[in-house]
């Protein structure tokens, strides 16, 4: 038997040392402001939650293209999105964080910025041309830009064009027309409205709440409500659910038992007529069906309310504790270029719109129509969790799923929702 330098005792001593080191790391809740560890050299570390195979590949292609330019270098680390979400606070508060992280615009990014955890990327923004003011607005926190949007997408009521043609249904624009279309589809023996809000994707139901609220009460009220300035038990919110009740009989009764992927299958196979969903529906649609997919804007309920649309924006932010500030900014700058955004869209499924208007999108009729819809929109909202917080999302899931199953209990549902939300806002 050969002897190695590695003995059991040294192993145990090593274990002990590791334990001691973690303990010396101090109290778990401490958030020291000084940055320790990490070196100023080496590639920019990019922590990505784009773990779907096509998106992961697209990210890698993007990083490779950046590295080929010969300037600063970057390296990619992809993490499952659920892990990423729960670990993000740890990434940001660690003394040696990843330099760049994928995230989305909205209040979550702002709350991190308020705590001084995000790098001020205003000078990256100042060199960017063509980005819309709306995008700049949602990337700004107290006068500084802290977020680099790279793409956005839209929500709408998706349907199969061939089925609508077969049933003799045309795209409704008002709520009355919408209900009429539902009646027609129902008369053909098909469930008019599909839903995929089971325990794995309950947040899909929030799309309905968001859209009904911005159509009934407007985008400003919606944002204020999510920020805790109004109560979910307010009469305005009751109005939203009264409106929802008129369409609820047309919903798939199994909608809260299906994942959104299963609901997509139902839509594609003609078991349901339409579904309120984001363009990511196209990611799971077989290629031969994509051209048959159409969408229409969420119907108008109150013509006096300015038309706002949901346009969730994705992108990147950087840690304020990065040691590689210049390289990080170089990388973020690259992400805003036409070249980078086109490269990314080409490798991914092409269901989103590039943030840089000079970059070409997928160019399909559906994407072009969506882009026009957003350009004409009076206001843009993100999505429930993006306009509020990931912490508030579960309260909405509980309330909305219960409403869909037991609409008669709406009064108690809304008071319960308000008391659950209050705890989140207070903490």
């Amino acid at each position, binding site marked *: 038997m050969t002897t190695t330098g590695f003995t059991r*005792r040294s192993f145990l001593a090593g274990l002990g040392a590791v334990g001691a080191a973690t*303990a010396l790391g101090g109290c778990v809740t401490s958030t020291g402001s000084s940055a320790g560890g990490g070196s100023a050299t080496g590639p920019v570390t990019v922590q990505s939650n784009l773990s779907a195979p096509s998106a992961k590949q697209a990210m890698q292609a993007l990083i490779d293209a950046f590295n080929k330019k010969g300037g600063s270098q970057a390296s990619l680390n992809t993490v499952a999105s659920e892990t990423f979400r729960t670990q993000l606070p740890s990434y940001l*508060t660690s003394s040696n964080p990843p330099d760049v992280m994928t995230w989305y615009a909205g209040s979550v990014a702002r709350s991190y910025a308020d705590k001084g955890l995000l790098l001020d990327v205003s000078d990256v923004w100042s060199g960017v041309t063509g980005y819309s003011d709306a995008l700049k607005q949602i990337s700004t926190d107290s006068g500084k830009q802290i977020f680099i949007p790279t793409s956005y997408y839209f929500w709408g009521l998706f349907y199969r064009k061939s089925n609508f043609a077969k049933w003799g249904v045309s795209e409704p624009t008002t709520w009355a027309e919408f209900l009429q279309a539902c009646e027609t589809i129902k008369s053909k023996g098909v469930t008019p409205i599909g839903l995929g809000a089971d*325990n794995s994707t309950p947040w899909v139901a929030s799309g309905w709440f968001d859209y009904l609220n911005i159509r009934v009460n407007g985008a400003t009220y919606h944002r204020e409500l999510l920020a805790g300035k109004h109560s979910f038990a307010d009469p305005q919110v009751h109005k939203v659910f009264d409106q929802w009740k008129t369409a609820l009989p047309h919903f798939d009764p199994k909608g809260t*038992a299906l994942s959104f992927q299963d609901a997509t299958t139902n839509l594609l196979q003609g078991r349901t007529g339409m579904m309120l969903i984001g363009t990511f529906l196209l990611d799971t649609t077989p290629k031969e069906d994509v051209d048959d997919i159409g969408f229409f804007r969420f119907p108008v309920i109150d013509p006096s309310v300015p038309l706002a649309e949901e346009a969730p924006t994705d992108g990147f932010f950087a840690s304020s504790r990065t040691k590689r500030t210049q390289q990080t900014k170089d990388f973020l700058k690259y992400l805003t270029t036409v070249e980078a955004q086109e490269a990314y869209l080409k490798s991914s499924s092409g269901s989103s719109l590039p943030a840089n208007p000079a970059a070409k999108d997928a160019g399909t009729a559906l994407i072009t129509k969506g882009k026009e819809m957003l350009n004409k929109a009076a206001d843009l909202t993100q999505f429930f969790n993006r306009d509020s917080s990931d912490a508030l999302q*579960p309260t909405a899931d509980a309330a909305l*799923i*219960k409403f869909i199953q037991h609409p008669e209990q709406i009064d108690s549902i809304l008071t319960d929702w308000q008391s659950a939300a209050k*705890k989140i806002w207070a903490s």
Partner: protein
Amino acid sequence: MTATLTAPAAAPPSPAGPRRRRRTLSPTLLAFVLVPLLVETFWVFWPAIQGVYLSFTSWDGVSPAVIVGFGNYAELFSDPTFGKAFLDTVLWLVLFGGLSALGGLGMAMLLLKDRRGVGFYRAALFTPVVFSLVATALIWQAIYQPDGLVNTVLGTLGLDSWQHSWLADANTALYAVIVPALWRQIGYVMVLYLAGLKGIDPTLYEAATVDGASRWQQFTKITLPQLSSVNSVVLSVIIIDSLRSFDVVWALTRGGPYHSSELLSTYMYSTAFQSLRLGYASAIAVVIFVLAFGVILTYLVRAFRDADA
């Protein structure tokens, strides 16, 4: 954890008492005791103490924690979701624990005698234990789908009115989750009981048969008393497994719909990592710890006192 607990059941009690040999401890031996203790302290005790400390704070994982005293514990009392999760956990303990003990014992009795093919049945019952619970949950998720196996079978039998969205219906979700958990646990408990049953001296039964004891008498007067040491192990395992049941519930329902299948463990997780209220979640964790520790400690103390007597 469970492996160490099962050990005393499998090994017959040592006939000789503890050896008492006076000897100074060698430094090596001391190191073998102290180093693991140190590691345990830093990796287990220290985080546990941190957890208790956190339960007295309000912390979102990013900002500095704020001490709130007993605020989190006071909130537990007025939190209807916590109350629901607590009752569900008790229900889980009773149903999951009780049925797996009964089922495990029943299966062990049934499969005790060596008959043709009995090895196959034992293996078949034990197989679910080998699967990860998350994989198990995926299988059962497919079974419970609106168009899944359960509803299809009910439809074929003409019981259409019994068809349900099992996991999405607040009335059935918790029970629908208990079934896969039981499916797995029964095999495990069966193996524990099989080991115990094999250890019973067959002459006891022979004597009882000669005395004209009925099957039931043999069971209550011989089998059950002889199994008392295994019972304490099974009970500990069941209580620990019930209170830490998380994976199967999370994978199937995430505590939903609207908290109807919420256990303390899932509520703790969602409070910590979805609502980012780590202080409050720590308070829930402390409650779980006290429950598990309290129940097991009282039982073990009593069991060992009985054993010593």
